[in-house]
């Protein structure tokens, strides 16, 4: 009778009834209940994933001219994805602008918590607050009403106010270029795409990627799997595995962890990373990554606020601004492919051509963008249909 004994005793005594009948059976049953409960709790906890801690440099001596800037992240800064890319941008800014003092709050859920966290940041004297997830849109607008002297910048939303601007990058441009790489690399003509949620941004990325793939390989298809999560290392890796099992030999992703890239590497296949250069996490698999480069934009915005030239714009930065790009290629990418990418990139950078230029057909083969026309920004921002070549569905509204 070791530790087990007290646990059982406790339960029996809590019941308050001293039972003679089938005591053994009863103990057994209780144990089943407890073990199942524990296993279930473990299941829940494992879903939360691991978080990497990181020591942040602090600047204790804040001089009076220092401007305080805050960042709110939806994931942990160690996610190697979305939040990490913003934090890289923050570090870049701190390096370039010694008179800036930054604070961050990471892993902030998009429900009731966001509004409180943003409020506290404004109360703490931050003059610029960057809220870096779509779900922070209404909380940002709500808090901005109460702090008219603070500038709020919301990433990826569409609502503005006198002191709220929005910012985002035309990630579809590098997505198209990475599509070229994937289209040249695939042997099975099936490319897997691990995607978070069917938001216009994700749909746009899948479409641009697919157009890139089919520009060099009209036979190839892009198969989409929704994970219904932005940040879940295990679920993302599993989704990648399922696509590999379905015959895909290149994986792309719109997720915040390198899980799908690791799945590709484990299977000896290839992948196209997203958010940041993911070749560090899966060097044998990653062909290239479509990456965010927020640093210069953060510097520009903070300077504009300091110079009082800031406006509540809706900034959607193109690749020529450097806010989005493709990372360097892995050793398995052929010179031929690199040349094709360079050609398309030059056209996009020179603004001679953009990705969603007609003719573009939807999955049913209907022409949605006629030849010679360019899809207007308004339509791109509301994308809710897939182009030809995508194997997947979007929930109907």
């Amino acid at each position: 009778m070791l530790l087990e004994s007290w646990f059982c005793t406790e339960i029996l005594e809590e019941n308050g009834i001293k039972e003679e009948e089938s005591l053994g059976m009863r103990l057994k049953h209780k144990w089943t209940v407890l073990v199942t409960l524990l296993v279930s709790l473990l299941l829940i906890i494992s879903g939360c994933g691991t978080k990497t801690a990181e020591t942040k440099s602090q600047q204790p001596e804040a001089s009076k001219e220092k401007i305080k800037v805050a960042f709110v992240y939806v994931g942990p800064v160690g996610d190697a994805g979305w939040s990490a890319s913003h934090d890289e941008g923050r570090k870049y800014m701190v390096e370039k602008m010694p008179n800036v003092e930054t604070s961050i709050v990471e892993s902030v859920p998009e429900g009731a918590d966001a509004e409180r966290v943003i409020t506290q940041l404004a109360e703490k004297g931050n003059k610029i607050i960057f809220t870096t997830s779509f779900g922070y849109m209404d909380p940002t607008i709500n808090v901005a009403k109460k702090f008219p002297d603070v500038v709020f910048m919301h990433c990826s939303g569409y609502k503005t106010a006198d002191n709220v601007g929005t910012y985002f990058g035309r990630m579809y441009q590098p997505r198209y270029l990475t599509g070229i790489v994937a289209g040249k690399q695939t042997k099975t003509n099936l490319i897997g795409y691990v995607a978070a949620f069917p938001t216009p941004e994700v749909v746009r990325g899948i479409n641009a990627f697919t157009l890139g793939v089919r520009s060099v390989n009209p036979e190839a298809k892009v198969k989409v799997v929704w994970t219904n999560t932005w940040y879940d290392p295990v679920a993302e890796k599993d989704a990648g595995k399922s696509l590999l099992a379905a015959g895909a030999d290149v994986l792309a992703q719109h997720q915040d962890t390198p899980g799908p890239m690791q799945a590709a590497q484990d299977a000896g296949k290839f992948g196209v990373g997203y958010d940041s250069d993911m070749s560090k996490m899966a060097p044998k698999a990653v062909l290239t990554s479509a990456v965010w480069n927020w640093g210069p934009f953060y510097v520009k915005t903070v300077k504009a606020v300091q110079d009082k030239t800031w406006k509540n714009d809706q900034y959607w930065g193109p690749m020529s601004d450097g806010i989005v790009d493709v990372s360097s290629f892995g050793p398995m990418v052929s010179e031929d492919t690199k040349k094709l990418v360079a050609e398309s990139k030059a056209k996009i950078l020179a603004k001679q051509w953009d990705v969603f230029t007609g003719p573009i057909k939807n999955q049913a083969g209907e022409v949605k963008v006629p030849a010679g026309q360019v899809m207007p920004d308004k339509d791109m921002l509301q994308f809710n249909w897939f182009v030809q070549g995508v194997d997947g569905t979007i929930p109907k509204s």
Partner: protein
Amino acid sequence: MNRLTVKLEKRLTPSPVMAFIIPFISVILALLLGAIFLSLTGQKPLDVYATMFGETLGSKYGLTETMVKAIPLMLTSLGVSLAFKMQLWNIGAEGQLYMGAFGASWLPLTFPTLPIYLMLPGMILLGMAAGGLWALLTALPRAIWKVNEIITSLMLNYVAILWVDYLVYGPWKDPKGSNFPLSAPFPDAARLPGLGNSRIHAGLIFAVLLAIILAVVFKYSRWGYSIKVIGSSERAASYAGMNIKRNIFWVMFISGAISGLAGMAEVSGIIGKLQHGLSPGYGYTAIIVAWLSKLNPLTIIIVSVLFGALQVGGYSVQLMGVPAAVATMLQGAILFFVLGGDILTNYRVILASRKGEEVRH
């Protein structure tokens, strides 16, 4: 050879002094352990703790926000505690909360022009009904075929969350929302009134009222008594002529309805629309709160506030450079020690050799 084994023996009467002192010692030990972690990551532990408690319980804004966080915890904890009383392990409060939010949202999204005196009561009823019916999906197989309710209630959580996701990404998407996954905002008539200019809403009144009602039911009513008896021994209860199946249905329905009310209060009182990620796991934290409160409804109210403070404080200390992971670890350490201390209140450790000689401590 004598081998020492460690054994726990239940104290016949937990010493009242120790019962009072041990929780305090537990918290202090947890804070000490946390302090070691904090110093290892280069923080000043005292400053961190001052912020953690100062900004949650020590300032007016912090206090109101702690209450905002505590309201859904109170309601879901009350919900699960009712089922736990009957030894029905309903761990589906998270899903019942989501279904409650879904049921409540249907009314303002379908009939946005209803007057407030029809809208709010209607949302409360629909939210509770949806949460309750969702819990019945667990109760039915449990009562009829003795299907393990832990598994079904847990699995139904995922279904409920994905159902709400489906709605906001599909049919309930705001037509004016540029295809973003949010429902249309609720009309003002569908918003629970708040306290002053804080975010505390009428959900607090629901929670306190329900806690009092449940306390009275457990203590004085026949039904409360039969729940306890069934929880202790189904066989004894059925000899006594209690209808076990009917009680499983009712207890699960009401348990789910209370969690459904939490979902209604969250969409109506705080968020003002239906969206993905309504709850950062209130329904799971509720299990811990209910357990720590020993299923006492009035204790649940207090413990929920403390948990709210712990969670809100976790974000506040990030501003001092404490990573989210360390803040979460700190919360875990406090829980660990409080639970551990609880065992020592009720049990004593006995070192016994194989031969049966006992060394008491």
